[in-house]
């Protein structure tokens, strides 16, 4: 039995990702690392948005908490990633649990407002951490070590990041097809119906929010290591907006799409900012135009192109289509 076209595309992408350091220019490796990190954070938004139907404008809070926890633990003398990163994720999950519990009863517009507000709150908390540089942030003297090996080498760090991205991607893809995933998608489609068949929606909504917080927190831990610098800017609502933009650019509800979206976003940002300091004056309208005129994200377009050339197998109980 041959491989499906989609699997082939996945393998090609993986091969391309693995090959980046071969370019011998450390700049590309570092850039790819940043894409992978933001892709992971954007993926956490996609869990909430594409599968959960929850538009959150506060995901940067958990990304930032992961980064701060990592930085703070490292400064306190903990260097082993196998200890620090899970703890950073736990910190992010803790924040997600509290903020989630307060937010999830809100629907639609209210949910966006509340997540935006709580995101801003964590930003103010970070700014108030005088011992950690306040508004200026702080540097991490060294990267963490992974199983005893220092991650100072950019190529090694990139492969570790990439491996984690692939693992998270795999775990999330199992999640969205599992019983839990069906409850989440059912709630997105019709929360009233879900309750009517006997599934209480809020506990699953909260669980998803916490899981997404964990993924974002891991992204934050990697970010702290990547830049060796942690500041409140990581928690700003602009960063939350960036994550959402990456999801939509890549296609919501696809998990891989957001990683594509991160690549597109960061490449555009880089190209435009090489051209002018005032790149946002072009980027803003580009984002507006993308929202207004382009219906589909990049990965969705790729999937559609693949399907057009392949006899469709029997549809599955819940199609993972692009759901924006």
């Amino acid at each position: 039995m041959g491989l499906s076209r989609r699997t082939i595309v996945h393998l090609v992408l993986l091969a391309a990702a693995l090959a980046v350091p071969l370019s011998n220019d450390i700049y590309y490796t570092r850039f790819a690392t940043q894409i992978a990190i933001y892709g992971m954070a954007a993926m956490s938004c996609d869990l909430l948005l594409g599968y959960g139907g929850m538009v959150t404008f506060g995901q940067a809070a958990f990304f930032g908490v992961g980064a701060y926890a990592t930085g703070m633990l490292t400064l306190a003398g903990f260097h082993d990633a196998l200890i620090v990163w899970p703890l950073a994720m736990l910190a992010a999950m803790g924040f997600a649990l509290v903020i989630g519990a307060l937010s999830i009863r809100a629907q639609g517009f209210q949910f966006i407002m509340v997540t935006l507000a709580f995101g801003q709150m964590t930003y103010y908390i970070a700014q108030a951490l005088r011992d950690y540089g306040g508004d200026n942030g702080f540097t991490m003297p060294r990267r963490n070590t992974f199983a005893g090996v220092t991650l100072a080498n950019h190529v090694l760090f990139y492969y570790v990041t990439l491996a984690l991205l692939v693992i998270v991607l795999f775990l999330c893809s199992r999640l969205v097809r599992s019983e839990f995933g069906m409850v989440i998608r059912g709630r997105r489609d019709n929360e009233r119906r879900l309750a009517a068949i006997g599934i209480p929606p809020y506990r699953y909504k909260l669980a998803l929010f916490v899981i997404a917080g964990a993924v974002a927190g891991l992204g934050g831990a990697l970010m702290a290591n990547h830049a060796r610098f942690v500041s409140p800017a990581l928690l700003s609502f602009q960063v939350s907006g960036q994550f959402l933009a990456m999801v939509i650019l890549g296609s919501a509800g696809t998990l891989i799409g957001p990683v594509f979206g991160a690549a597109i976003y960061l490449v555009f940002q880089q190209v435009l900012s090489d051209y002018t300091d005032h790149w946002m004056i072009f980027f803003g309208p580009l984002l507006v135009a993308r929202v207004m005129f382009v219906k589909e994200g990049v990965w969705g377009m790729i999937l559609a192109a693949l399907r057009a050339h392949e006899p469709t197998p029997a549809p599955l109980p819940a199609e993972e289509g692009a759901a924006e």
Partner: protein
Amino acid sequence: MSEAVLEIRGVSKSFGALRACDDISLEVRRGEVHALIGPNGAGKTTLIGQITGELAPDQGSIHFEGRDITPLATAARARLGLARSFQITSIFRSFTAQGNVALAVQATEPHSFRFWHDVRRIGRLQNPARRRLEEIGLAARAGTVAAGMAHGEHRQLELAMALATEPTMLLLDEPMAGLGSEESQAMLALLGRLKGQYSILLIEHDMDVVFSLADRVSVLVQGRVIASGAAEAIRNDPQVRVAYLGEDDDAEG
């Protein structure tokens, strides 16, 4: 003497100055089909909302299988065995027909905090779902995404989902709504098969359907139950006829 599965005791609900439900008392006995009829605006929707838990009564209480369910949330009531179908079709549009029913089967489990196994390969969910679809007559559409199905098929799917949760009681909200004559016949036959197996509270406008299925009928007008009793007696009750004056009693929902 068959006991009451569902008891509504003195339920009242107002929205500002509007008294939508006024001291309503009603019971559904085990195994019976109890129809609730009344003109539009009579308060049926508000009453259903209070039975399912989406609205809280201002006064009164609701009892199911002898238990006071008034403080319980919608999902908790469903888990006790109270299933419903919606007047305006309410399904999971991005799921296939089988996926819809499989999720209803899944709902009977204690919880859904399972994160690893692909639902499509879980036999204990998919097999009963498939069987329900066959019973309802939708087996051919098992793999079709719900959004792409016809309205009549949606109504059937609603029913399949309600049945898949293994309820003791069905609350059917205008199951005939929007169906063509052939589809109505099929639905009527289906409901006839369900009669006796489940206790049913049936809200319907179609009088032919009501009187061919119902054991007892209650009439709701302007928030009050004006008559309640055996179907034939209600049919001939002059008070009921007056209440329907100006209403086309052949109207479908």
